[in-house]
């Protein structure tokens, strides 16, 4: 199974990546650090070997952070949602799990956000995992959702 992790936070990406590769050793994992990278990866893969799963962060910069893009361009609060909309419009139907470490984004609670995603992207949205650096609960939640994709 090909998994794309769209995540700009260094530590979170490392921990999720580590957990996914340890728990699902047969999966191949690629990481995109921005909306731009994720979009390009998804579009490129669509033509040959589409991803089977997208693990998506909600808040990301537009471009990968680099010396020439110190802040990664504009950071959009709902960049993940924008990416999902782009996928829908481009007819890229990769099942998606949103992994966020925020209790809410720009005054929108996670339950409201999840309900919106379910409403707007019923074909691909699998669920939302609340990631916490201080707790381990996210691992089981992520595992359950990932196993549902396998099945």
């Amino acid at each position, binding site marked *: 199974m090909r998994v794309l992790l769209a995540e700009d936070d260094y530590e979170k990406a490392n921990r999720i990546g580590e957990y996914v590769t340890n728990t699902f050793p047969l999966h191949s994992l690629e990481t995109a650090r921005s909306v731009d990278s994720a979009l390009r990866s998804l579009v490129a893969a669509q033509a040959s070997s589409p991803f089977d799963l997208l693990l998506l962060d909600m*808040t990301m910069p537009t471009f990968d952070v680099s010396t*020439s893009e110190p802040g990664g361009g504009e950071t959009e609060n709902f960049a993940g949602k924008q990416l999902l909309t782009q996928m829908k419009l*481009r007819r890229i139907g990769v099942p998606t799990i949103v992994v966020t470490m925020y209790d809410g984004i720009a005054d929108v609670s996670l339950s409201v956000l999840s309900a919106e995603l379910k409403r707007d992207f019923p074909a691909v949205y699998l669920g939302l995992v609340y990631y916490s*650096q201080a707790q381990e609960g996210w691992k089981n939640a992520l595992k359950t959702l990932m196993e549902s994709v396998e099945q």
Partner: protein
Amino acid sequence: MQQCGWIDNEALRQEQGHFVSRNRKRARKPASLTRTSFIESVLRSGGQSALGALKEQWSAEEIYRQFPHLIPDRKWLDQVHGPAFPRKPGDMFSFGLPSSPSGSFAAELAWAIARCRACARELAEFVELRLEYERSVIRSDWKTGEAVLAEIERQFGQSFWLFQAKLIQARTGGDPDNAYAVLGNQWLSDGFASPWVQYLVSVSVQVDRPGARTAVADSIRRVLRSLPNGNALASYAIAKLVEQGVPSLPAIASTLHYDGLLSLVDQYEGLVAALGWGIARGEMEALAGTFLRDSLRALSRDIPDARLRPILAALGVDAPLLVDTSVAATARVQAYEAYAKSDYVTASKRAEDAILDEPDDIACLVLLARAGIRAETKKLLLPSLATKIYESLGTLSSLRGEVYGAATELLAIAHRFSILRWAKQLELLVLQMLATEDAGVNRPRQRSINSLDPYLTPLFRLGFGAALDRDSPLGMRLLAEFPFTSAAIDLILTGACNGAITLSTRKHLSYMARYSLFSGDAESAISCLSQLVTLPKGEVDPRSSALLVTAFLESGQLDAATRQCVDGYLSCGELPSLFPLVRVTAMLDDTGTWSDSIDVPLMFGIYNSLVDNGRLPHLRIAFERFQEANGIADPARLSELSPACSKERIVAYLNLVWTPETMRQTLLYRSTSEIEDARVRVCSYLAKIDVANDSRYLEEIRERVKRREISKATSLVEQSKVYVDVAAIKKTLRSKLSGAYARYKASASGGDLDPAMTELLEELVKGLAGRDREVLVVAKSFFDGKASVERLKQLASLYSDISDEFLLGSHGLNAYLSTRVRHGTLSNTLRKPVADERLVTQRNEDGSYIANTFWIERLSALSETDATRIRNALEEFAISYDGVINRIKDELLQIKVVDSTKEMPAALFTYHTSSRELEAIGSRLESIEGIDDFIGHCMDRLWEKTDVNLIAVRSVLAGDVRAMFMAAFQRLDSSLAANDNRHAVSELRNALNRARTAVHRRLEEVSAWFNRSEVYDRSDYSPGLPVDIAVNILEKTLPQDGGQPSVVCTPTDGALMPGRTLDGMVDAFHALFENAIQHSGFTAGGTRIGVSIGLQNKRFTAKVTNETRPGKDIEADLRKLENIRAGLKDPRFRKRAQSEGGSGLHKIWQTINSPFYSNARLEFGFSDDQSFFVSIDCVLEEASL
């Protein structure tokens, strides 16, 4: 105090008693509350709870009919409500904060009608005076207004309505703020005023501030939420004071309930408003069949208030009040009829006549404005405020010119006078004129307008057509008086009209189109509207154009709707809100429905610029598709797509679609710089094809290019933090070491011994043999070795001097690390993510942290124990976080020369030179010609060591330092996770997570600083550039909450500064700006800095001034400055310049004392006006050129 009209109420009692006897069988006997028990309860408990129980247990009908029996005497009402006509504010809400909930809408209505009827005589007088006041305002006759209000106060005492009316009067003076304060104080100084009344008074004053309504509504909800019955109180306060939207039925009920506790005047005003809301919402129909019709007929007879007319008409109640006998009635009829006949000159004249008599007839004023445009009326005799309204209505109706400006002005007037009926109607009319044309007739909107209009015309049928029976007396009267207007309304509502009446073709087509759309016949609507929109440009009514879009949508012609919508926007763009943008873009949600036309991206571009960014992904993909489908890489290519892409469409496309916001998140661009380049090309092309606006595009290009240059230069400067000024060091060393170097060189080239001694020894060796010869050879070797050690010592000394200068000299590594990294920049860069999220605060002078009030205030829902724990956790986090920063700058980013006496165990810049290394340098010396090469060679070696150190720095930052920061976050996170009330701290956790992600990025940014910078050549630059770069650096590093300083720079024209001086100048200005922020006494956002720069004949001057906070004690500053001044003269100032904290001026002095400048002067101090200034004056040297 006025006596309530109790005698009149005898009739009321009889009438209602009759009603009781007629309905005795239907009336439900109250189970638990009887008249006796109600009266007893009033006597015992003051009436509030009894009234609450009554409203809960009795039907509205029972309340209304029992009222005269329940209330045998006026004093009973006072027991329930407080005095009907309070003499002072303290008499209102005299029972304290109302905690009892209101009854149902019907129950409150019944009680209010009955109570007002009971005091009808006074209220009838009040209504007359009130109308006079309304008219005096629109006539701008403030004197009369003042007198009328005084009379109202004399007769009816205090009321909240009166307070609000006085606010209106206060606004007319020259100093409204003061007038508010005086008025507010009058009310608030009444020591007995209820806190609730005081609250209403204070909110009323706030609401008046421009744009304050939404914020005030939020504040009301927040403040009242925690009170008992807080939601109802909030609904009431918002409905009464903020008037946003139509309130819900419970909110209307609350309004009636609470208004009744203020005063009778307020109760009556609340009642009229509630009736209006009720009929506008269509909520009265269910009640109308029972007591309401009769009670309203009676009410209108007792209190002939014209505002009751639309209510009576909407409920089909015939009453004498419906007959308009006013002097203006005839003129009004003639105006409407002339307008329907398209006789706009007559319509204009007669409407003016009507308004002169009854200036509160806002609908007639709208008609006058519309007729005036067509009749080209120039001069009117209207009073000033009415004229202002007329003119703005004219602009808004014409849909030409400053349409939104006119609408804004009208809405401002409406809000300013919002307690007046005509102002409320004006607001709704303006909103209707701005509203989207998405149906032929918008009944709910029309009902709201009609419900406020006491001057009944056939227009009433647009909202209440079904309720108004044409055979009723009112229906027949309107038809007889307004035959042409009625025919027009018939056409809109039924598609047919009196055959004897002919309307103009334009009117006929327009009204028929509305009817067709309203009745679902989109094709007929398209047929009518297509004829209207083919009129010559300028004559096309934008409303017809907008209706045509709706008609296309209704008939399923999406491409045509999109094209028409874009056409409409391009030809009538002054009021784009008329067009159903939301609906069209919603229909374009599926990319499968998109055509290849430019109209698709344009449609999304228009939506994005006017509505919201909810369709931004659609816009981006539509843009990408259109560009790719048409092979557009350059804007000029668009012109080849003519005629499908007209010039207007291309200009709109370039302005609304091909923008940086759209270009992001497409597959067409890979970086911000590519996007910026593309936008500059777009603007260049726009300047060519849209010549009328070329200055705007050229300005955008200038701004973007400048920003790009600043950003590029900032990036270059930021990459030069690990820097050594080789030229300056060589200059210093050349003069310092030339003698020593010559001696060393001479000794090395001449052998180990004195030449004469060498010659002598060699001669001796030649002449000897055997043992003597061996002894002599050994002796020569001894002398050679001794000389070699001496040479090595000489070399070590030379290298040490070079190393010292390279590492610790004025222009060496440590100096630049201090200025560019350790002195503020590093701290600010790493602190910004946590400061922006308010996780850390600034420190006091004693090193303790300023209390973190931001989060403490937001954690008010926590228990004291939890709040204390989090407060401590935040402080501990701040200490840990700053501790890591201090460790980086004080211990890690330091230079350690092994074997030196200075203890720097953790320093990452370590330098050690072995004997072997020195020998290797010595062996290279033979091939080195002069001292410059020698110094260069040594410095190369030092750079190589530095490179190794830089790898270590990056590694430590990515490893240990990152781990230390993350450990601090982890501890805070764990403290938050341990909190029982997770919801209360969720906002704080989000802030923590945002900061943590940002810190990772910042660490990567900081890590990138630690690369060797040997870029000595930069382009020559304008003297203002370092100021811009310094400001840019501040923007990137200062915490958001403090704001950014205002820096105004007046640079010199023409001459350029040599590129090699750029970094130093940036250092200098950055240090000056940081000093200004730190010492001005203002926050960063409050600091104002002025910079003037001069460059003439190689002489560079700069003066930086900043204001200081008034009252700031500058005595201590003056003493510090005197010390600094003395310190700069001390040769040891260089050492001071390499330390951090209070060394800004030392660093600047060091910068302008580099070999790039001569004759440097630095002056600083306070001007007479207490502004602080720093003057720099120096001459550019050849070395810099």
